């Protein structure tokens, strides 16, 4: 009997396991059936416990003679149960205990029949089962042992299963009503039996933990939202992206990034140089370098003078010349010259680091998502709508951006599938490059010619305004007309707009670079001129001071008041002059950009928009039309502006502050200008995923702007009467001085040792070797990566072809079994999908599927008949069960009667 029962239980369990996963409607009663069967031993435990208390009481009250041994046993059993110890020490004891337990429960039930009629009816079945088992237990001692353990294991398993069901309830595509009933049932079951297994204690903790995880998830989400909101101008940029495409947005993202970098530089320079100087340095007017000279005093506050950064502006903390060469300032004994030098170096160091780091992270990002290329259009179609959007304006933007992104992809697609005459394109491209090189050479020669002429003009007296400003005028004219010319020529080449943009960027870069270096050369000439005059001015200053203090005709007894700082003759201070040059250039560049936008874009847009009503041709579609956003020009303007900042910041610490303001205003101004007066490009194209091209140009400019600064620091003597390094032979002497005076002597020796060329050259060699080694490693890794990708691609193809075969087969199959409702079919598909692993283990599944393609198809084909079989065979399988249950109940009842009688004896 017991064997039969066991077998049935196993069968039922297996069926339930299968059906519960497949989610067929038969789950309910099946699991119920299994539940009732499984209740047997569990109910034993539960009922036993419940019965234990009254039993004890009864013993204590009514039958003291039977007390001690029995109670001991009861207590030990309870103890064991509570601890969750499943092993029984001896078979005998178990059997005895079980019998006693049974006796006690029945006793209790005998005593309280009228009170809980409901419970009784429920328990009756359990009791019956219990009673039924007694004879079998008695028949075989060892059998009873294995049974109980097995059952316990089964219960454990079942509870686990139910728990799993509770947690995975939301994975099931059931309607809510069914979910609710299932969930309640499962929860009830777990609640009932978990206690018996001694696991109920952890329930509270578990609930608490679940709550905490929920809270944590919510917190993380809120924090992410907060972080997203903290990104400045995100909405503005999204807005632009949705209307103009990602290429225009990439400029604004670049601008934002640049703003962040400049903010850091600004903090560095202001915090470590300007603010200490203003707070602790000598005040304005105390020494000659901090005072406006007598000759300039009258005009020093005029706006036209201030606008040129002369007068009071020149003698302020914004420029190099204002700083004193005192080794330490203030009560903090802050070493300002040292700080000035280190900040100047760290500006470059930080910029280099941040540019290279962002380039590296960009390349990492671009290699990781290689697979998404396979589904460009599908992803766009099915995942681009954000269901969170709940604002009609955002929704409009989203519609626009989806349309734009579709157009971008279509352009890419058409580009890749285009067939054309290769020879003609090649010829045209060579021709275009030839023309552009001619243009570049011409402009280079023009600048050279103009600079030569300006040097001649500078020697002459009373030159006209044009002759004085010829270089600047020619350069800005070149900058204005060459880019459109290049663009016209580039139309010959017929590149994809994304590649075309890169070419355009490279060409304009070459042009701008020429301009920049002519400017630098002219500046260098100026500096050398001033340096050569320095010696004479130095002598004049000395003589003036000497004469002032030693001149006769002054009462010797009273010491002479010191010469007013404004009267002291001073040198030209070439560092400040360079700083002022860069400052002016930055400001004028900013103004030119804004005015160009205002005139070229906004006024043109207004003209086209409003004069269109009374014009003889269509202005909007015809000649002037609206302007497109000039990505290449703007990006390069930004990059070269940054180059100016890097070059100038050493000689004009305030330059970074001006630049921060400039970037801030241009962000708002350009955003407004783009949205108000530009139209999207005719062929909207997607920006390359990493804007490493911009970054590469920026790195190049950074390097190029590092060169002149390094040259001036290393090989030009600082001015004798201005700046933090005055009186030293070279600017970097400040480090040597600090090492000698402020560090212990052995550190000075270490530095001297480190500076030894015998050590530096091997170090450089080592670095080269390391670079070579790492480079070769990365190359081999990327090769391996490409091969793996190829393999995955091939596997996918194989899978595809297998699927197509299988798909046809299943289609035929499903036609055969068309009697099944469509609901059933979808459920089946869903179960198949449910067993499908997530993307993390896709490769594994590919590997598994590839060798045995038949397995998946066979499962899908076998799944259909089995489930149908289950559906059909449920009613008959129910019947024998109930039939068996009846005799059991009879036997159980008689047994219970017997057992109830026993203790009363």
């Amino acid at each position, binding site marked *: 009997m017991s064997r039969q029962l066991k077998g049935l239980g196993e069968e039922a369990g297996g069926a339930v396991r299968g059906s519960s996963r497949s989610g067929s409607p038969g789950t309910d009663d099946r699991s119920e059936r299994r539940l009732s069967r499984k209740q047997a031993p569990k109910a034993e435990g539960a009922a036993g416990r419940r019965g234990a208390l009254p039993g004890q009481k009864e013993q204590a009250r009514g039958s003291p003679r039977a007390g001690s041994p029995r109670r001991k046993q009861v207590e030990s059993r309870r103890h064991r149960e509570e601890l969750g110890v499943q092993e029984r020490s001896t078979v005998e004891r178990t059997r005895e205990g079980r019998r006693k337990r049974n006796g006690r429960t029945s006793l209790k039930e005998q005593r309280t029949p009228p009170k809980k009629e409901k419970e009784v009816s429920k328990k009756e079945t359990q009791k019956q089962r219990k009673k039924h088992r007694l004879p079998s237990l008695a028949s075989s001692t060892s059998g009873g042992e294995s049974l109980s353990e097995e059952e316990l294991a089964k219960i454990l398993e079942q509870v686990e299963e139910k728990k799993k069901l509770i947690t995975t309830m939301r*994975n099931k595509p059931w309607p809510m009503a069914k979910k609710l009933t299932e969930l309640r049932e499962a929860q009830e079951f777990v609640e009932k039996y978990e206690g018996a297994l001694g696991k109920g204690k952890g329930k509270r903790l578990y609930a608490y933990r679940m709550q905490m995880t929920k809270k944590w998830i919510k917190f993380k989400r809120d924090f992410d939202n907060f972080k997203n909101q903290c990104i400045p101008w995100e909405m503005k940029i999204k807005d632009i992206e949705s209307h103009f495409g990602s290429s225009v947005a990439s400029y604004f993202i670049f601008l934002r990034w640049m703003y962040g970098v400049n903010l850091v530089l600004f903090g560095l320079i202001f915090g470590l140089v300007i603010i200490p100087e203003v707070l602790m340095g000598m005040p304005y007017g105390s020494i000659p370098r901090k005072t406006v000279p007598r000759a300039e005093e009258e005009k020093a506050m005029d706006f036209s003078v201030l606008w040129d950064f002369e007068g009071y502006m020149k003698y302020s903390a914004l420029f190099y010349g204002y700083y004193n060469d005192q080794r330490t300032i203030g009560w903090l004994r802050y070493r300002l010259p040292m700080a000035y030098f280190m900040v100047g170096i760290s500006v470059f160091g930080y910029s280099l680091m941040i540019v290279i780091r962002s380039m590296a992270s960009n390349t990492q990002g671009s290699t990781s998502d290689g697979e998404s290329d396979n589904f460009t259009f*599908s992803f766009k179609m099915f995942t681009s709508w954000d269901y969170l959007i709940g604002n009609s304006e955002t*929704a409009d933007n989203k519609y626009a951006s989806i349309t734009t992104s*579709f157009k971008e992809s279509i352009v890419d697609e058409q580009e890749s599938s285009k067939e054309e005459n290769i020879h003609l394109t090649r010829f045209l491209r060579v021709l275009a490059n030839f023309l552009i090189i001619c243009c570049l050479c011409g402009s280079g020669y023009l600048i050279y010619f103009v600079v030569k002429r300006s040097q001649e003009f500078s020697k002459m007296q009373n030159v006209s305004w044009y002759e004085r400003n010829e270089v600047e005028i020619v350069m800005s004219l070149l900058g204005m007309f060459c880019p459109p010319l290049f663009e016209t020529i580039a139309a010959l080449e017929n590149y994809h707009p994304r590649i075309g943009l890169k070419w355009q960027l490279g060409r304009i870069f070459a042009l701008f670079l020429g301009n920049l270096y002519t400017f630098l050369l002219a500046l260098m000439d100026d500096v050398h001129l001033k340096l050569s005059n320095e010696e004479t001015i130095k002598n004049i200053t000395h003589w003036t001071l000497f004469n002032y203090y030693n001149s006769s005709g002054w009462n010797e007894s009273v010491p002479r008041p010191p010469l007013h700082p404004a009267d002291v003759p001073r040198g030209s201070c070439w560092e400040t002059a360079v700083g002022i040059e860069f400052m002016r250039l930055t400001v004028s560049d900013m103004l030119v950009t804004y005015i160009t936008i205002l005139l070229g874009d906004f006024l043109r847009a207004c003209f086209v928009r409003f004069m269109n009503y009374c014009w003889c041709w269509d202005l909007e579609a015809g000649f002037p039309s609206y302007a497109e956003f000039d990505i290449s020009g703007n990006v390069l303007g930004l990059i070269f502006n940054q180059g100016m900042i890097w070059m100038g910041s050493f000689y004009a610490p305030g330059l970074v502050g001006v630049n921060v303001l400039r970037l801030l205003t241009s962000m708002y101004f350009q955003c407004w200008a783009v949205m108000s007066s530009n139209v999207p490009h005719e062929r909207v194209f997607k920006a390359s995923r990493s804007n490493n091209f911009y970054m590469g140009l920026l790195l190049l400019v950074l390097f190029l702007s590092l060169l002149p600064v390094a040259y001036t620091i290393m090989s030009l003597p600082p001015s004798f009467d201005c700046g933090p390094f005055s009186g030293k032979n070279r600017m970097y002497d400040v480090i040597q001085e600090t090492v000698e005076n402020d560090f212990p002597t052995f550190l000075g020796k270490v530095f001297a040792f480190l500076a030894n060329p015998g050590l530096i050259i091997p170090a450089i060699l080592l670095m080269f070797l390391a670079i070579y080694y790492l480079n070769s490693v990365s190359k081999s890794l990327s090769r391996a990566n490409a091969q793996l990708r190829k393999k995955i691609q091939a596997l996918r193809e194989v899978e595809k072809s297998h699927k197509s075969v299988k798909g046809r087969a299943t289609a035929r199959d499903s036609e055969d079994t068309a009697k099944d409702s469509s609901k059933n079919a979808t459920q089946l598909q869903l179960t198949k999908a449910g067993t499908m692993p997530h993307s993390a283990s896709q490769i594994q599944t590919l590997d598994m599927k590839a060798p045995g393609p038949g397995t998946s198809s066979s499962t899908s084909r076998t799944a259909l008949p089995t489930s149908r079989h289950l559906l059909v065979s449920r009613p008959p399988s129910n019947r024998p069960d109930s039939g068996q249950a009846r005799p059991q109940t009879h036997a159980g009842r008689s047994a219970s009667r017997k057992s109830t009688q026993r203790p009363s004896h």
Partner: protein
Amino acid sequence: MGNKQTVFTHEQLEAYQDNPFRQRIAQVFSEDGDGHMTLDNFLDMFSVMSEMAPRDLKAYYAFKIYDFNEDDYICMWDLEQTVTKLTRGELSAEEVSLVCEKVLDEADGDHDGRLSLDDFQNMILRAPDFLSTFHIRI
């Protein structure tokens, strides 16, 4: 989700007027497919659209939403409907058909000219931002 709100304000109801698939969502989750939902259907919808719902479940219902003619396959016509709804008809007919062809080309695993649930799930499980976009927050 955190704030206890039992009554929807007018603005909140208005907020979901912008979803291009709102009718499809209502139809999919309503019992008889007419777009009228009982409370249970409504709860169903939010349990699917919640952040906690698993990928597979979301993919299953997303498939149903994009399956406009409810033949258990996403065919060419469904795709065209989707594109037109997503772009508000801003793309020309050739562009729409090009996009639909590309989608079928990419995602159709068994080359039967339509996307089955299998194909769809295979594709959507790789999508980087499907989970982040396919949910509604209340």
